[in-house]
């Protein structure tokens, strides 16, 4: 079964990336070229050290390429300055991390509200948006709780609410279920699936868990910095 051809939201061309450790240059990604269609739920898979988190960071604009281009929408993010990238990330990318990465001194609702402080929304609007986002992940009753008072699954749901509250172009998730028990992981994956299916969110998820990857619509494999060009469509 072939998926319907959609306009690419992310276009990656001839991307190279290496890290510098003192005088040592460690190549991480080699000549990566592929597109991500709008509304796609992509799972980037590969063994540890294959470069999948590096690729995700580059797509999300939190790291710089050595060579190549990355277009997200109409923007070539490889040409943006640090300040422009920061503004672009604030508007265009929602982040979900393995360890939730919530600010421990902020309540759930304040954590969700945090990215909205970079927008022009009024205080009441910011709070309204944050409450809606929390309700969408089923945590409207935990708004005033601090991260330390919540389970891992709940914290990850708050992180998802924070990721979607700005209505970003793409959602990037780095091992979002890596720190969760199976039940919580299922819950998070279902939530991401719904975001993709019901809200049309483009999701790029790094995982090495085949069960998590099976929830994606497309899977791509990286191995030692090279991309396997045969993207596998999820049979489901």
């Amino acid at each position: 079964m072939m998926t319907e051809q959609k306009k690419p939201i992310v276009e990656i061309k001839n991307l190279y990336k290496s890290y510098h450790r003192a005088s040592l240059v460690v190549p991480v990604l080699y000549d990566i070229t592929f597109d991500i269609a709008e509304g796609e739920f992509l799972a980037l898979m590969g063994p540890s050290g294959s470069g999948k988190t590096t690729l995700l960071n580059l797509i999300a604009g939190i790291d710089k390429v050595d060579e190549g281009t990355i277009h997200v929408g109409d923007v070539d993010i490889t040409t943006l300055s640090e300040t422009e990238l920061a503004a672009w990330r604030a508007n265009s990318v929602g982040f979900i991390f393995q360890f939730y990465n919530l600010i421990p001194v902020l309540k759930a609702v304040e954590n969700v509200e945090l990215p909205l402080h970079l927008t022009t929304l009024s205080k009441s609007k910011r709070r309204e948006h944050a409450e809606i986002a929390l309700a969408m992940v089923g945590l409207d009753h935990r708004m005033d709780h601090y991260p330390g008072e919540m389970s891992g699954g709940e914290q990850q749901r708050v992180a998802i609410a924070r990721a979607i509250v700005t209505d970003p172009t793409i959602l990037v998730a780095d091992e979002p279920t890596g720190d969760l028990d199976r039940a919580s992981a299922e819950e998070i994956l279902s939530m991401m699936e719904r975001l993709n299916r019901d809200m049309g969110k483009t999701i790029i998820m790094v995982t090495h868990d085949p069960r998590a990857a099976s929830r994606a619509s497309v899977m791509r494999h990286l191995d030692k910095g090279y991309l396997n060009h045969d993207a596998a469509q999820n049979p489901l």
Partner: protein
Amino acid sequence: MMLLKILFRNAFHNKLRSSLTILGIAVAILAFGLLRTVVSSFYAGVEAASASRLVTRNAISIIFPLPISYTEKIRQVEGVKMVSYGNWFGGIYINEKNFFPNFCVEPRTYFALYPEFVLEERQKKEFLADRKGAVAGQKLAAKFGWKIGDTITLKGTIYPGNWDFVLRAIYTGRDNTVDQTQFFFHWTYLNEAVKKRAPVFAEQVGFYMVGVNRPDVAADTAVMIDKTFKNSLAETLTETEKAFNLGFIAMSEAIVTAIQMVSFIVIFIIMAVVANTMAMTTRERTGDYAIMKTLGFGAKDITILIFGEALVITLTGGLIGIILTFPAARIFGQELATYFPVFLVSAQTIYMDVAAALIIAFLAAIIPTRHAIRIRIADGLRRIG
């Protein structure tokens, strides 16, 4: 607002560490404030000195006397408005621990030259009328429980024997910078006794206090006075009261310098402690800052967070230290009134306390901020987990 909320909550997130750091800063600022006040109190006499008063003493040394016959000659010098004189008596009350400055003076002119010593008119009259009468400062009288009419006996050190005085007046200060621990009595009382006991030491004074018409003629007048007694048996050295008092401080300059150095060392030590705390805090929050940068917050926001947290901690500690300085200085001043008759926390000391707290915050935050701003987001995120 959100940044303020985060920085305030961050500042007190680790309650034990924050409390200990704040306590350390409070103690350091308290110590700094007290040491600065000690230094200021050394200079209290200099600050209180009038620009219209000159001190004339023997050119060889203060311990050598001048003849009383100089009084009229000094009075005739151009620019001189009033002349008084006196001697350091150096009497001991009961025992040496009860030290306080005591002088015999020509009282009419002396108190006219020192309007900052405020006497009740009736008490002043009674003092002037009684040759054995004495005047004590209010703090001194309070310390020993003296009341008007009490007989006070001082044991002479320079002038041997027991000397009885009747307390006729208690002076207060025009303001709280006036030394209220001094004791004065009639020069004539001493001189008459000396005439009988050791006539060779009679008719001599330790110093002349000279009031000039205007502060701007003080320097010329001082030169004129010294010229008058040039090549006499007792040449004079005349200087402003301020210079005279500074001369006394110069004798203990090493101590003052040491106290000043210690006060800055205290601040330096606490600066190192706060810098270490801020470095630990920032290292712990590397992930938080990386997340904020990921979400789109910039270097300015991270700077506000780290500097803000350092400021909250140091200013809280500094404020507690400043508040504690006042009661501590009061106790310190009471206990050491003998050495520091005016022990007041000055506005300048408070400004220096605040400046010290701000400098501590700034220097403690600068390196952690630089580190947090420069770290790559990807590296910062790797610190989590």
